[in-house]
């Protein structure tokens, strides 16, 4: 099979390897590749596919990296891959390098391979994909499309994807256009047969049906956010297109159309507004929430920068708002199609002046769904913006997670909103009075009562009755009440999660968001090395007491972050008054999703030093 000397053969492995596809952007490979991953999911095998795509529409290299792990490790593994499916001549040189010794380089051998690309420690397996496609289809567009389906068919033979799983996906996909089913299945079969013809035996990398995916689903974080907003009762979504957040609004619209159209009248019990920019989008969200409708926007870094002034208004005027920031690599335009967790500081301290914002950190699509729904309760309860920090990795890749759940007995927490009867009972309504001592005042919505409850909302200082004043005392009282409210906040926020807890462990790892999978995998590795560690996953800011308690309990504490500046650490240090020297950082910020290998490398110096010493570790991208 290999064009040069014989490399070593990989040990046969089942359900534990990485396949990477090298494609051309815009060539339609996405659906074929996703069919590949989904088939593995349906075989009950844990699988985590990730797109590595360019900020470009057509013609640039794009990759799809699929990790298969019977152990259920869903983080990026990193390092070289066992099988490279090369369908892009442009990136071939780099792709050859990415194969591990003994691994396989599957390519289109319609044209000869450049001899410069030949390594003698890997296997080259060629199939004349172009030739096969061209001799089976005339239309050039169909050729382009079906070439992708064909290589999936070939892989079915080579690594043992159940053909029926693929067929099932085809029929589901084209359920509404059944005439398309047959040609797709034939294309798969064609690939399968041609591979079988060319290669006497399958690869030592094999898939075998498992049962790990019961009660699991496979979906993208952004779609889950959109669905969460539907369940959470959002009626107004105002947004401006920006990668990687666009599919949040699209997801909301898709699900709302499905679930929220009045069957009798055909009217929409929701509104989606494509704004003219992010300033306008957040303005609309604030206007709608001010008027008592649950409303949200989704954006990415540049949008968050533009929304600063409005976020300050909402903080100070105490208007609920939900903002989903699907983080990408910053700063400035950064790398729009790469992931990062680097909008933490600008979100937490959004706006000029003294201001602080609620943050949520989901780690899985399920949490995207749940925390989005929760965000509306939290925003209404606390009368302040809630910023959910997700990221491109979570938002734009399909992830396996537990199936989504909803408790029908749950009801929306609309917070302290007074209706007409409530107002009747009140002598004088004080919009900014701290009646309950929790820092949260009562609010009213326009049109509630003919005589009572109206007030003038503004971003400038006013007294407890919303009467304009420039008195320093009134201003200070208000700012202090906002601090009381801040102290109340954790009560309404999700608690941090300790997944591993052993009093004997002196090392504690703090993480949040999409570092979850890689961190858990690392903890397994550490366990095996005889250096077990505990972990705490933070889900919200401001932090609850649990975070401080966790830090206090461990001699060494490491925070895993996907940014350069250790931004979450800054929040912990500032808000919990923790000595920064107590906290080590593992920082990853090259735009790729973090992997267990990288965390392990990052931990190295920390594992070797005595407790209490500070280390901040960044390392090269792998």
């Amino acid at each position: 099979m290999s064009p040069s000397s014989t490399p070593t053969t990989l040990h046969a492995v089942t359900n534990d390897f990485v396949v990477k596809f090298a494609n051309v952007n815009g060539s339609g490979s996405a659906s074929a590749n996703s069919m590949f991953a989904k088939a593995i999911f349906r075989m009950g095998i844990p699988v985590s596919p990730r797109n590595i795509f360019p900020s470009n529409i057509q013609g640039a290299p794009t990759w799809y990296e699929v990790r298969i792990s019977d152990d259920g490790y869903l983080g990026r593994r990193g390092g070289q891959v066992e099988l490279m499916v090369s369908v892009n001549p442009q990136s071939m040189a780099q792709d050859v390098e990415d194969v591990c010794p003994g691994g396989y380089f599957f390519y289109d051998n319609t044209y000869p391979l450049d001899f410069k690309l030949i390594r003698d420690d890997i296997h080259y397996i060629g199939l004349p994909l172009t030739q096969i496609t061209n001799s089976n289809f005339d239309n050039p567009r169909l050729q382009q499309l079906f070439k992708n389906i064909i290589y999936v068919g070939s892989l079915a033979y080579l690594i043992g994807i159940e053909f029926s799983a693929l067929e099932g996906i085809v029929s589901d996909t084209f359920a509404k256009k059944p005439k398309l089913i047959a040609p797709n299945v034939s294309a798969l079969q064609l690939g399968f047969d041609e591979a079988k013809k060319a290669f006497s035996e399958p690869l030592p990398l094999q898939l075998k049906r498992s049962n790990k995916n019961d009660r699991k689903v496979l979906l993208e974080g952004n779609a889950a956010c959109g669905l969460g907003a539907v369940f959470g009762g959002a009626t107004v979504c105002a947004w401006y297109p920006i990668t990687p957040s666009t599919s949040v609004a699209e997801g909301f619209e898709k699900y709302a159309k499905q679930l929220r159209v009045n069957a009798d009248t055909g009217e929409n019990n929701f509104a989606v507004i494509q704004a003219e920019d992010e300033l306008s989008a957040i303005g609309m969200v604030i206007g709608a929430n001010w008027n008592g409708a649950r409303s949200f926007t989704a954006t990415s870094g540049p949008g968050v920068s533009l929304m600063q002034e409005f976020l300050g208004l909402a903080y100070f005027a105490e208007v609920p708002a939900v903002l989903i920031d699907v983080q990408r690599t910053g700063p400035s335009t950064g790398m729009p199609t790469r992931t990062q967790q680097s909008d933490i500081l600008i979100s937490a301290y959004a706006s000029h002046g003294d201001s602080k914002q609620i943050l949520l950190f989901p780690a899985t699509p399920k949490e995207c769904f749940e925390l989005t729904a929760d965000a509306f309760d939290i925003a209404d309860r606390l009368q302040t913006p809630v910023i959910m920090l997700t990221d491109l990795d979570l938002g734009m890749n399909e992830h396996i997670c537990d199936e989504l759940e909803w408790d029908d007995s749950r009801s929306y927490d609309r917070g302290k909103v007074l209706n007409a009867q409530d107002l009747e009972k009140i002598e004088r309504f004080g919009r900014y009075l701290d009646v309950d001592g929790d820092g949260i005042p009562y609010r009213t919505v326009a049109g509630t009562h003919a005589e009572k409850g109206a007030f003038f909302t503004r971003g400038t200082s006013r007294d407890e009755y919303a009467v304009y004043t420039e008195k320093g005392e009134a201003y200070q009282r208000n700012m202090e009440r906002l601090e009381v409210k801040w102290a109340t906040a954790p009560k309404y926020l999700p608690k941090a999660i300790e997944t591993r807890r052993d009093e004997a462990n002196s090392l504690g790892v703090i993480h949040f968001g999409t570092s979850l999978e890689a961190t858990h995998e690392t903890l397994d590795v550490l366990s095996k090395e005889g250096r077990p560690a505990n972990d705490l996953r933070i889900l919200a800011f401001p932090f609850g007491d649990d975070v401080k308690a966790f830090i206090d309990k461990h001699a060494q504490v490491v925070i895993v972050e996907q940014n350069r500046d250790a931004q979450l650490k800054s929040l912990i240090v500032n808000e919990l008054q923790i000595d920064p020297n107590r906290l080590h950082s593992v920082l990853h910020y090259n735009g790729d999703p973090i992997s267990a290998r990288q965390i392990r490398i990052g931990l190295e110096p920390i594992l070797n030093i005595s407790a209490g010493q500070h280390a901040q570790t960044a390392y090269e991208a792998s």
Partner: protein
Amino acid sequence: MSFFKPNFRHPESPKNTLGLTTRAYEGGISTLCAGCGHDSISAAIMQAVWGLNIEPHRIAKMSGIGCSSKSPNYFLNKAHGFNSVHGRMPSVTTGANVANRELLYIGVSGDGDTASIGMGQFAHVIRRNLNMMYLVENNGCYGLTKGQDSATADAGSKNKKGRINPFESIDLVALALDLGATFVARSFSGDKEQLIPLMQAAMTHKGFALIDIVSPCVTFNNHAGSTKSYDYTRDHVQAGSVVDFVPVAQEITLDQIQGSTQNVELHNGDSVRLSKLSKDYDPTDRGHAIRTLLEHKAQDKLMTGLIYIEPESDNFHDTLNIPKTPLNSLKEDVLCPGKSALTSINEGLR
């Protein structure tokens, strides 16, 4: 502070069909300068809403930042108001309006708030044909930050530092016509007779209604040659660079017959030539409106009145296809698809 109170406090003041006197439509005491055009506009709003027999709390008062944007605090105390951020009133109003289509939205903005920092949102709220009345209290300057030229300042006019403004002014009426606004009018703060019915028409219009209202800033237009008696003071003020001397001025009012052109002298000695549209002017033809506006401009006349109206257009609520019931009043039963819906969604995700 002009202890500005409309003079309809008489015990036998007339009542509207709701049985309310104009008193029920009042606001807080104005903190604008005595004689500020914006206060006349507030008075006109109260009269207009009263005359339309709308309960005050069915109104939402929206504004940006500026002297003009403060003014919603000085009318309709029983209505909620939102004094938001500079230049962004349109987006806040859009959100509020989509949330509750049952209220009547009065947006108050300034020329700085609209034509400078707010230009983008102004254009796009027009494009959406949001059902609201949008008032620009246009004084050609930034009142609240002490008199810088705004983008609607006339080319060639002198600002308070005696410098000639070199830039063409932006005509918001022309722009709105261009951008497809479905109700476009212009008026003058001192012309109640024209202004009140225009406002009533605007509030009745189902869609976006702009009234660009010339509203003189008495304070930062006191630089040029005005009446002789002011000279000494002005000299004094200029020489001593007193930054905070604001001579108390009279509101400029006017009362003219339809179809005429009238010269209105402003506090700065400049004047505007206001020209009321004649009775036989047809406001339903956009092309005609644009052409007429061009002609007036060529003659250096400011055309006032209802310049264009498109009575039957889809406003943003129609476009969005939202129900008559306000979105903000939909309850969990309608909003939340619940567990069973989720079960089938889960199925689709395997």
